[in-house]
């Protein structure tokens, strides 16, 4: 599992603990350009913590990260967008009082160039940029079929739509790496199928590499090129969906957690 140069993300020996509690330890992970890489594991396996460490919200104690050509011990969160990384959150993190369009537009905050004076005076540079950004936002809104909600305050939308707005905000910047933390949690089967379609289409259209945390093993098997399995903060396996299904360590981990919904893994 040597990280290749074409990998967009390489995580080497990353460890994080809170006080004495280990969130994850010595994690290696590599994500190739355009790959959909799922991270699965029982609750508390460290999946979300790993994504939060990759996006600079948590400071890992050991290990290294590479995003594109940039190497870090800790990723500065404020530079993420500039590095071409976007993410969604397990618990929604929308700008609730802003409209859907404004939320999507805010995904372009990093490429705003017109200065405040140009914005206030409505200089042509600011107007041209506003028109261009609006067009980009509208095309993502059309793509995710959010058109009829574009003027609504994001916080007033039902949960599933809010998840979709968050995806739109992440996609509008054409990221080369997109991290989705349970984008389908709490969705109905129909909504999951729809969301899966959007994730695949986003990869198709933008060539975005996607790191996906998801509990629904059926969805994971259908979407992923590769899967990494975490258990108690350790990586126990990485491989294609086929390899993962046959991996004894993975089966043991999932059989061990009997009251966990991921028991479907052995059936899948």
């Amino acid at each position, binding site marked *: 599992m040597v990280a290749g140069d074409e990998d967009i993300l390489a995580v080497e020996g990353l460890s994080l603990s809170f006080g004495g509690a280990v969130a994850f330890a010595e994690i290696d992970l590599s994500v190739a350009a355009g790959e959909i890489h799922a991270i699965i594991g029982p609750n508390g396996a460290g999946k979300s913590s790993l994504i939060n460490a990759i*996006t600079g*919200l948590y400071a890992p104690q050991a290990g290294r990260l590479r995003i594109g050509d940039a190497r870090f011990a800790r990723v500065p*969160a*404020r530079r*993420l*967008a*500039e590095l071409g990384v*976007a*993410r969604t*959150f397990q618990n929604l*993190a*929308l*700008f*609730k*009082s*802003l409209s859907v369009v*404004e939320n999507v*537009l*805010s*995904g*372009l*905050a*990093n*490429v*705003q160039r*017109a200065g*405040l004076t140009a*914005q*206030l*005076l*409505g200089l042509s540079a*600011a107007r041209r940029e*506003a028109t261009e*950004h609006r067009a980009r936002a509208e095309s993502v809104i059309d793509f995710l079929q959010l*058109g*009829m909600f*574009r*003027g609504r305050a994001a916080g007033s939308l039902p949960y599933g739509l809010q998840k979709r707005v968050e995806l739109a*905000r992440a996609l509008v*910047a054409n990221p080369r790496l997109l991290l989705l933390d349970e984008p389908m949690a709490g969705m109905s089967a129909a909504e999951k199928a729809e969301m899966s379609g959007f994730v695949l289409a986003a990869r198709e259209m933008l060539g975005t590499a996607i790191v996906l945390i998801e509990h629904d093993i059926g969805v994971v098997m259908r979407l992923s090129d590769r899967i990494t399995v975490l258990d108690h903060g350790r990586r126990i396996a990485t491989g294609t969906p086929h390899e993962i299904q046959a991996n004894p360590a993975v089966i043991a981990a999932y059989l061990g957690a009997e009251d966990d919904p991921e028991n479907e893994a052995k059936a899948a």
Partner: protein
Amino acid sequence: MATALPVTSAQPRRAGAAGILLLLAIAYGLVPLVGTSYLFEAILTPFLALALAGLGLNLLTGYAGLLSLGSAAFMAVGAYAAFNLSLRLPGLPLPATILLAGLIAASAGVIAGLPALRLRGFYLAVSTLAVQFFVAWALNRIGWLSNDSPSGIIDAPRLVIAGLSFDDARGRYLFSLTIVALLTVLAWRLVRSPTGRNLVAIRDHETAARIVGVKVARTKLLAFALSSFIVGIAGVLWAFAYLRTVEPAGFNLDRSFQILFIVIIGGLGTLRGAFLGAGFMVVLPLLLSRLGTALLGDGFDTGTLEMVQRIVLGTLIVAVLIREPAGLAALLDRAFRRLSPRS
């Protein structure tokens, strides 16, 4: 479906623009003709100054979500800066004096905003409270700022622009109105710009804002600067156009709270909220005083008035916050929606 939406969203905007033009026409055309100097001096000029201060604070607290209890301090910085500029640079035209005073208040705002990079909510409010006390202390201690006037009270300079005097009651009203109108346009442009969107993004979810590339620290300081610029100029109006004197007592903590109440009652995160709240704050005491005199006759002295005023105001703030946390602006919106027929 997608084509129907812009039509419905453009209609209120056009109606809103028409309403604003009508208000401006009344404010510039009708009011100066029919108004008495009592109306100008006791109601409209303080209303405009307070509304402007509310507008400035609303950018910071309503839009960017940064709570400040130091508004009066920034008003004082603006007023004293304008006083000192006109005293020490006598050749400076008044508009330049006011602009510079605003910029000085903005710099003070940036310094006061530095703790906002680390603190938020209640803790930030306490740090702005420190600014409030520091400014009051500095104005009382440093004689140079008040030109060594023994009481700290100084007369405001005359309001003259290019030979035109705005010193009478109507002139001071028109002077204030023009400044407030200009700065309101500026604020309106701001909240609809990408920068305005960034302010709200930081308020609604700071982490998400940082992740999408909003420069959080810079935007917070910018919010302090823009807010203090406007609040500082409101201070100039308060001192130069309304009180006609400049004194530290006019900018005490009570004033900071008054402006915060204006914003809360009027509606956080709306521009018209500042005007509604300020109107409420200025008109309420007058109404209560009239009402009290009518009911109690001479027994209703200023002491009683002040007490009643505080009780009623306090009750109303609580009532508004419970019934309509989004303030008078939201209340008015609902009333309009009920009145206007919808297809």
